[in-house]
């Protein structure tokens, strides 16, 4: 654990900014900024997550050209971006770890994601005070103060910060700063306790995956939530762990490209098969799918919930569909029907 003063931190990041982009929370989302002016970030999370930086909503994979009977195929050079992302919350870091696992940790490595992800230095900031829509503690009680995959993780104390790192490159950046003294470490403990105490009461999530799984066919369980679902894709687009994409082609004047873009399980085209069959034919199945995937399938398959409790979908849903209610309701419904 290192001690770092506010202006030292600003210098560190702005120096990095000479050779790379600086991303920071600005308004609704993470934006590129010319320089970092403050280490203060708003309570809670941004409306849109930082996933767009590694997983752009549109990305060209290859291009082609047809001319005088010739067909030329070109692969697009891998994206080459270097940046430092400041102001990630711990829930965002958990989400990034899950994205990492999805894109690079299994049988196939997605080089497009990998390249962008490797170029980014992650600066996490612990939550002093959780927002009322936060519920990260439902999945892991220590999350709000957990460094996760951050290169540098910061605890903002009164007038200076404590910093720790979980990666080699992070450690290198911090090496010149002094170690934290007893007093600071005591303060840190208090900070952690206060932070965790600011979160809502924990909902029982032991066995959640099984509970939700068993409720798959329970129409009554889902009905109230479904009644108000409009069927848009906002929840999936603001979600920091939603990673589904679509691959499309477009051709303009004999020059074409293959590109991928964000897709959403809330759209009817998502599961439409070439035969014309759509296994999730109505909004009901699609709405249920999101909850099944976040709270059950992912856990059963990979041992992790795809919900990190950031509360973005809760804040952004125009019809106020609240995933917290679904989790809470699953606790009260007796097994095998309700």
């Amino acid at each position: 654990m290192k001690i770092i003063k506010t202006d030292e931190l600003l210098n560190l990041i702005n120096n990095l900014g000479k050779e790379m982009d600086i991303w920071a929370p600005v308004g609704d989302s993470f934006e590129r900024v010319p320089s970092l002016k403050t280490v203060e970030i708003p309570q809670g999370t941004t409306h849109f997550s930082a996933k767009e930086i590694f997983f752009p909503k549109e990305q060209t994979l290859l291009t082609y050209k047809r001319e005088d009977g010739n067909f030329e195929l070109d692969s697009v050079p891998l994206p080459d971006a270097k940046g430092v992302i400041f102001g990630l919350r711990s829930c965002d870091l958990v989400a990034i770890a899950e994205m990492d696992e999805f894109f690079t940790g299994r049988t196939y490595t997605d080089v497009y994601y990998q390249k962008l992800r490797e170029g980014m230095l992650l600066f996490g900031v612990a939550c002093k005070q959780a927002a009322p829509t936060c519920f990260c503690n439902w999945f892991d009680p220590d999350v709000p103060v957990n460094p996760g995959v951050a290169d540098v993780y910061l605890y903002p104390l009164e007038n200076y910060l404590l910093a720790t790192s979980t990666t080699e490159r992070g450690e290198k950046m911090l090496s010149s700063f002094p170690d934290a003294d007893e007093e600071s470490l005591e303060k840190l403990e208090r900070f952690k306790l206060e932070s965790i105490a600011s979160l809502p009461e924990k909902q029982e999530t032991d066995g959640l995956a099984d509970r939700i799984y068993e409720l798959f066919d329970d129409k009554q369980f889902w009905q109230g939530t479904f009644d108000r679902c409009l069927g848009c894709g906002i929840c999936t687009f603001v979600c920091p762990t939603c990673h589904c994409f679509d691959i499309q082609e477009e051709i303009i004047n004999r020059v074409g490209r293959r590109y991928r873009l964000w897709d959403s399980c809330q759209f009817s085209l998502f599961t439409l098969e070439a035969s014309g069959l759509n296994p999730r034919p109505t909004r009901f199945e699609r709405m249920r799918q999101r909850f099944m995937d976040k709270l059950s399938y992912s856990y059963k398959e990979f041992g992790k919930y795809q919900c990190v409790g950031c509360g973005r979908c809760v804040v952004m849903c125009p019809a106020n569909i609240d995933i917290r209610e679904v989790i809470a309701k699953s606790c009260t419904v007796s097994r095998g029907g309700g």
Partner: protein
Amino acid sequence: MPEEFNPKILAFLCNWCSYAGADLAGTSRIQYPPNIRVLRVPCSGRVNPQFLFKAIQVGADGVLVSGCHPGDCHYLTGNYFARRKFLIAKNLLELIGIDPGRVQFSWVSAAEGGKFAEVVKKVTDKVRTLGPNTKMVKKKLEV
């Protein structure tokens, strides 16, 4: 001196009147600017305003839709419906900043070869003064 701008204009002509009108212009050897690319449609009522948007997207500098005079539609009422749709589409395009001169409509009967040539001339002149369209055009991909 810069080369004169030769606009590309897509013309949707109804099969029964305006297309025949264009034919008559041809057989009567009436000259008109070669800037139009003709697309024959069964009726002006067949022209979905999305066709107009699409034409602009793929690079038409102007669009012309021409059908039978009101009351003369081969299908009795197709052009009446078309007239309402076109007015709304045209006004929307104008609202978002696309010059109304780029999207034009005319009634040309099978007997009006002369009028057809005149219409094409007018539209071409107008679009030529407006210059190449840059709004809402899909840019060519860079390879």
